């Protein structure tokens, strides 16, 4: 099993080729796929998250690590699925109706994928109906809403209100973010969580799906 520690290293270095090779080899040796994920891959992404927090690395480095992790996960997921295992969580994400900004949303989506979430990205300018329909169709755990304009923030409240009307409010956790959004606004509209940065959003999503 000592070879598997190289998997951690490959992900830290963002070396997708090495990550995939080591994963293949480990699976060939019948290593438990769940163990690969929880013991070697998630800790690698946690370490990258820490480096990012302290300013020792940047998002581009986070992203290539996440891509390496994702490449390995593509080998592992079918095995987990065959066992009936689920991803860490499933997230429907998008930018609010009327809002053209997607950098923040894309960042959160990538980092959630890197953390083992299945991400359904609805893009920009998404109306409340589509968020809810997709969340129901894909059996999502979380709905993640992004707004970069103060004028589109009110649509966040609309999503939560529509969920209530549909009697589906407690089937999904709703998290919100974006430059003009604040914790207070999140509380006011009854969202389940708020983060002011992409890395924080991943921690938030994890806490909410395990809560």
């Amino acid at each position, binding site marked *: 099993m000592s070879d598997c520690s190289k998997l951690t290293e490959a992900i830290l270095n963002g070396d997708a080729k090495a990550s995939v090779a080591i994963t293949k080899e480990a699976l060939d040796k019948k290593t438990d796929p769940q163990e690969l994920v929880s013991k070697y891959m998630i800790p690698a992404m946690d370490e990258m998250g820490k480096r990012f927090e302290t300013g020792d690395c940047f*998002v581009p480095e986070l992203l290539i690590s996440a891509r390496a992790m994702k490449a390995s996960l593509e080998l592992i997921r079918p095995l987990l699925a065959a066992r009936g295992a689920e991803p860490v969580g499933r997230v429907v994400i998008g930018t609010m109706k009327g809002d053209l900004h997607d*950098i923040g949303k894309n960042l959160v989506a990538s980092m959630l994928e890197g953390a083992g979430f299945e991400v359904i990205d609805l893009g*920009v300018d998404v109306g409340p109906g589509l968020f809810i329909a997709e969340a129901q169709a894909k059996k999502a755990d979380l709905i993640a809403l992004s707004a970069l304009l103060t004028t589109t923030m009110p649509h966040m409240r609309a999503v939560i209100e529509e969920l209530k009307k549909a009697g589906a409010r407690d089937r999904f956790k709703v998290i919100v973010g974006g430059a003009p959004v604040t914790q207070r606004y999140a509380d006011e509209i009854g969202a389940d969580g708020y983060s002011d940065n992409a890395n924080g959003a991943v921690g938030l999503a994890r806490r909410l799906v395990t809560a």
Partner: protein
Amino acid sequence: MTSPAGAPAATLAITSLDDFIFGRAPHPVRCGRGMEIGAGTVIPEINFTLPPIAIAEDTWPEIRRQYAEMIEGVCRRAMELEVPALLVEFETLPPMTENPAWGAEICKLLSNTLGTYHAKHGLRNALRLTPNDTREFQRPPLLRRGKYWEGMLELFARAAEAGADLLAIESTGGKEVSDEALTSADLRAVVFALGVLGARDMAFLWKQIVAACRASGIGPSGDTACGFANTAMVLAGQKFIPKVFAAVVRVAAVPRSLVAYEVGAVGPSKDCAYEGPYIKAIAGVPISMEGRTAACAHLSSVGNISQAVCDCWSNESVQNVRLLSTNAPTVSLEQLAYDCRLMNTAARSAEDARRLRDWLTESDAPRDPHAWVLRPDVVLRLAAEIMEEETPYRRTRRAALAALEELARAHGAGELRLPPQEARWLDTLRRQADTLPEDESALLAEMLDSPAASKFLPAEYGL
């Protein structure tokens, strides 16, 4: 500040550091009611916007009330503070571009108040209308057709009748490729987005804007690399991407922004175009800049240096929220007015204007790579290098290479302080830049064969 090394190319409108000062541009712009920009006086430019409110039929009376309150408060204070002139920017909100009648209505409201203050109180002023580039509402964007484009065209055409004196835009062609390139620090894709896609869209879009302005007798003012280099700057400010990368993106954005002026824009550039000093040096048009006074809109690492060679001095944008004193737009106006007073007082002597410029410069430059590339001497040097090339793509590539070289030199010489995690990116980016082909078509072919190809429609760029 020492003079730039080497002789600047003859293509620059400003070749001597002595002539590169705030308030004065080689080609001043007359506009509005008695206003001249770049003719020796720095002019405040104020931009204000709504607090969170839905834009709809039933909120429209409140929206009108808000704009009326904002323009009245700003004009009254501008008069009381005896500003030399006042430039007001009305940046529409997206629904006001999609529905041009709404945008035109607010524009008219603002223009009427400005007209009254000029007639009654002699307040010189002009109104700049900045419709949104709503084309990026759909991905991949349709840049030359479709409802968004038509809404924009209509608002351009109605601008003069709605009382605008200047037309501007923050255009976005190429942003669909640039966005992801920025978060990945993919310099290759950024250069492609700016130098190949962005530059082509600018040429197309600005020919239309210039035609609309000529048809109605108003001024085609300017554009900005906001969607590209400001996005990079903000991401770097949040420590998402390296600051040195954002600084290189800034310089690489110059050739794209320049296209607007090559096809007929006359200035002032948009306030949020921090590449403005390059534009002023190359094209000679007056520029609007923002810095510490725009902290209401975003924090900045270039709060002072951005002012060094400005012709208009702006707050970027502020919402109509209430502060202890009064509404935030009036507060912003007051801060701009006092800053302009100081600059214009110093500018009574050209030597003193240069002194103030140099203090503004020195106070920021050694601390931050983005500030470093805005040093007036660096601007003249890099602008000359950029203009040695002939095409937007080759200029963009050259800009990236020259910026990287300058940052490495300044860091090596101890003039620019960089923490180690920033400094190591200079090498990473240099390796990326060195592989950029000299030939544009080679990069295009490569990109069309990459995952980025799914993000844009070549035909929308005439490709």
